[in-house]
């Protein structure tokens, strides 16, 4: 099996994943209209402002939807067991694509409360993932 593909650490992605490496989940928040946003953008999609802060997330959210990649369509991801990319809606309102740890796809449900954990997939890259909250 090939290695899993990694994000390219450049620009805003480098900043986002840099915080993850430091065990902080931060999203951009517009300085002018206070809107949270993810994925990282140069400007606010609500008001067009270029001014933002990287604001700390609560790290908590709920499962919004998911898919089970039963048939692998990328050499980095095996079919058995399949990965299950999950959309998490954070308490701040932003959504992000991630995956759950220690939760087989059959146990996923919409609305399931989750919190962020950090997976150091290489020495450089830390991916935010989620675990079930009791």
């Amino acid at each position, binding site marked *: 099996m090939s290695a*899993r*593909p*990694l*994000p*390219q650490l450049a620009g805003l*992605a480098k900043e986002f994943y840099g915080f993850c490496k430091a065990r902080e989940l931060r999203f951009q928040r517009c300085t002018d209209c206070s809107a949270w*946003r*993810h*994925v990282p953008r140069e400007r606010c*999609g609500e008001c067009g402002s270029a001014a933002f802060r990287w604001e700390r997330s609560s790290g908590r959210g709920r499962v*919004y*939807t*998911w*898919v*089970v*990649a*039963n*048939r692998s*369509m*990328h050499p*980095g*991801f095996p079919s058995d067991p399949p*990965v*299950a*990319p999950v*959309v998490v809606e954070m308490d701040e309102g*932003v*959504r*992000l*694509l*991630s*995956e759950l740890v220690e939760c087989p*796809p059959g146990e996923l449900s*919409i609305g399931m409360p989750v919190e962020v954990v950090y997976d150091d*997939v290489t020495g450089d*890259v830390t*991916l935010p993932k989620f675990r079930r909250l009791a």
Partner: protein
Amino acid sequence: MTARACIVGIGETRYARDKAWAPTTLALNLEASVRALEDAGLRAHDVDGLMPFPGLSCAEEIAANLGIAELAFASTVHMGGASPVASLLHAALAVTSGVAKYVLLPSGWAGYSGARARQTVATEVGSLPGGAIARDYYIPYGLTAPPQWYALLARRHMAEYGTRPEQLGAIAVAMRRHAQANANAVMRGRGMTLEDYLASPMIADPYRLLDCCLETDGGAAVVVTSEERARDLARRPVHVLAVAAGQPHPADEIVSRKDLFRIGLTSAAPRAFAQAGVRPSDADFAEIYDCFTFEVLQQIEEAGFCKRGEGGSFVEGGRIELGGELPINTHGGLLSEAHVVGMNHVVEAVRQLRGEAGERQVPDAQLGVVTGFGDFGDGSIAILGRS
């Protein structure tokens, strides 16, 4: 558009999954183009406009191979599977404004004997709108291919509106039934029941194998000109009554959308229907871009054939089959005819409106709707009328 454009020529190659055939993508685009020009009664040097599908061929190589020495208009729309119908918009603008006389729209690919769709998307992601976002935020988690992107929407729709697998299956079964009346359909001779559908393996749960379009070899092309020029040509022209394109917001990223179900068609369809002065219920048939079953259901809702959340019941009971209230994908679609990037939908609509669809002809078809859907939800819609 006050002045109208017409589709005056259609061309298709053989559609097949046949390892002994193995045509190139370019050869498919060229053969379909030649047939479309023959159908229109035009010669290659009459063509002064070219709109090839993004990433499959380009105007330069089409022109070089067909002997088109003077191009006044060459352009490509980058909307994935929404491109062919969106290209009709650009072509219509070109011929009604006088920028070009005859615009050729070639499409097609060796999607079976060449690189398969499932292999190309993840590895050539940089070529897609939103490619860097997918690379940095989707693919590291294993979200790598179109059935997975759209399955996220399908599952959420099931949760919010109670849409059931049997309803997605009704779409697959209808397309397969229509393919039985189409000699060029890859799935002719291979019937499918709802039980077959439900028993097919999961590919991207909630998508089963039979929710997914085919991987095939085939090319399709159309020729567009002005209403005035169309009068002098061999074939009964089909009028482009209206055509529109639209994008979701943001168009380069799926999961953060405030309204997950709002796609390009959501804004494009009302514009097109208003422009044509007709309602969705006036359509005699619709050819809906069917990369996956749920996208058919979603486009039925977002185009206004029914309300959001009612698509599941709309597709049941034979309503979308030939003989039903709104036959959809009368040729079998990408699911059961062939995956010719949606240009086969345009060709089929023209054939229906000419009254040349043979055993699958919708009786007295006067008004047809064709949609395109691509990338992360870009949309396009054409409303076509019999002359």
